[in-house]
């Protein structure tokens, strides 16, 4: 075991989060280490998105602790979390529909003040997604689902995150786009960004991830290396669509 303090990017420690009076997370614990792709799988309503919302500060857990690079961010406001190095491509993409692709990417870099690197990062996004370069002045809301997903991931990258969270990047996309998106996720990870990937497409997710967590009704039901989860009989039955 290597030194936990330096190796751990994100640590979520027994968090309990609520939606109004609904007890959505009942003690979720998970960890993302340097250079990892970690996936969070589970059925609808298991608490995957709630976990991400708790991490990025849109909601605050009532109990438990979230630490990022050694700092406690349990009660940090969403707009400060970005500046610390966590950015997200949210479920449903949530682009600014009446803003151009370029403006959306600019918004991703909102907290940054370094103008020189900003241009460079914009080019990096356009290199990862040449399609976006072609559409840079198009209104984001008028693009296809796949293009919007690229834009949402690109926008999250513009924050130069140390941890990138992707919520259902494959949802509603044609298979050819899904493959492209996952290839890009691997590429982004190779360039040095830790990734927390939430997916319903568990097979794909476990293919690219090094480790995984299976959420069930607000708790972690299973965890382990991706290959082991893929081989697990229960996971195969429930999430990989095998009888």
């Amino acid at each position, binding site marked *: 075991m290597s030194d936990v303090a330096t190796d751990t990017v994100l640590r979520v420690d027994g968090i309990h989060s609520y939606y109004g009076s609904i007890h959505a997370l009942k003690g979720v614990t998970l960890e993302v280490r340097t250079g990892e792709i970690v996936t969070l799988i589970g059925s609808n309503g298991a608490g995957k998105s709630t976990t991400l919302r708790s991490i*990025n*500060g*849109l909601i605050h857990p009532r109990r438990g602790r979230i630490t990022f690079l050694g700092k406690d961010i349990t009660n940090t*406001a*969403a*707009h*400060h979390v*970005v*500046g610390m190095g966590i*950015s*997200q491509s*949210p479920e449903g993409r*949530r*682009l*600014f*529909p*009446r*803003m151009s692709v370029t*403006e959306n990417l*600019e*918004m*991703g870099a*909102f*907290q940054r003040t370094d103008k020189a690197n900003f241009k460079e990062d914009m080019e990096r996004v356009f290199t990862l997604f040449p399609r976006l370069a072609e559409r840079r002045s198009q209104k984001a809301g008028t693009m296809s689902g796949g293009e919007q997903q690229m834009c949402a991931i690109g*926008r999250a990258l513009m*924050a130069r995150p140390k941890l990138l969270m992707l919520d259902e990047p494959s949802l509603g996309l044609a298979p050819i786009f899904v493959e492209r998106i996952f290839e890009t996720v691997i590429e982004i990870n190779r360039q040095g960004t830790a990734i927390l990937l939430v997916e319903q497409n568990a097979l794909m997710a476990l293919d690219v991830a090094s480790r995984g967590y299976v959420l069930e009704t607000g708790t972690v039901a299973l965890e382990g290396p991706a290959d082991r989860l893929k081989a697990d009989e229960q996971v195969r039955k429930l999430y990989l669509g095998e009888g």
Partner: protein
Amino acid sequence: MTSADTAETIVKARRAAIGPATAVALGLIALLIVWLAVNFEKSPALFVKAFLIGITNGSVYALVALGYTLVYGILELINFAHGDVFMLGGMMSATFLVSIFHLGSDPSAVYLWPALFASLAISIVFCGVLNASIERIAYRPLRKAPRLAPLITAIAMSFILQNVAIAWKGPNYISLPINILPHGVVFSIGRNTYTWDALIVVLLTVPVLVALVWLVQYTKRGKAMRATAQDREAAAMMGIDVNRTISFTFLIAGGLAGAAGLIYAIYFTSIRFDQGFQLGLFAFTAAVLGGIGNLPGAVLGALFIGLVQSFNNTLGWHAPGSDWTQSIVFSILILILVFRPEGILGERTPEGG
């Protein structure tokens, strides 16, 4: 299958229902055009005069309408207190111009312009801060409440501001010297003249509008405003401080109302506690007409309302006259809300119909 069929029947039924309504609307528009054409033919000079007055009044409405639309765009709240913020700006301006800068009739340019710009700045800052404070105190605590709660609070806020004005200035008109602005002739058509005071109104309004468009379109703050208006949560995820952006929007909207307050005070030279409410409703109609939340739409709607008012008040041939102005303007509001709630330039949204 059946649900698709039902949907189709509904669409067909809707089309059938809209048919006669559209015909009536087209008929009304045709009648309006004929009326305008006959008036123009009978007295072109009067027509042009009415047109210029309409543009002048419309530009004041535009400043107020933009405040409604900015706030609606970001919070989906109709800030009924907005007109009253404008009214207090007018009273503030009147106080500064008359009691502090001692401007009388026909002041010399050396006194007029510095006093005017100083009062403008004071009014803008005062109304901006007032509006932002109203949001902080009255609307922010209700951010998560059902939509009706902040709406009722806004109406209450409107009454409070009106009563503050009564307590401060009393229930009567407070007036400024009628010739506070130069009334020299800029140009004349026949017996009708266009005077400097009207031109000054337009000359003060246009730079404010241009500055606003620049702010919203090209600055970082403006982009944060647009992002927050389009998706508040996503904006927070980008690192935008949503509360600060909303405060800033109220500040800008209030500043516009402050500018309008000064311009109104010096152009119409009298103001009363309830005029914010009246003008506010006109400006609100303008904002709805243009498509609420849409900045160019608000300006367009305001110019339109200004023209409706002045054609109705000024034209000679079968104009209903000023007694009917409010009825006509609010009939327009009702017609838009019924037939095109998204306004002229607004976008059809699933929830907005």
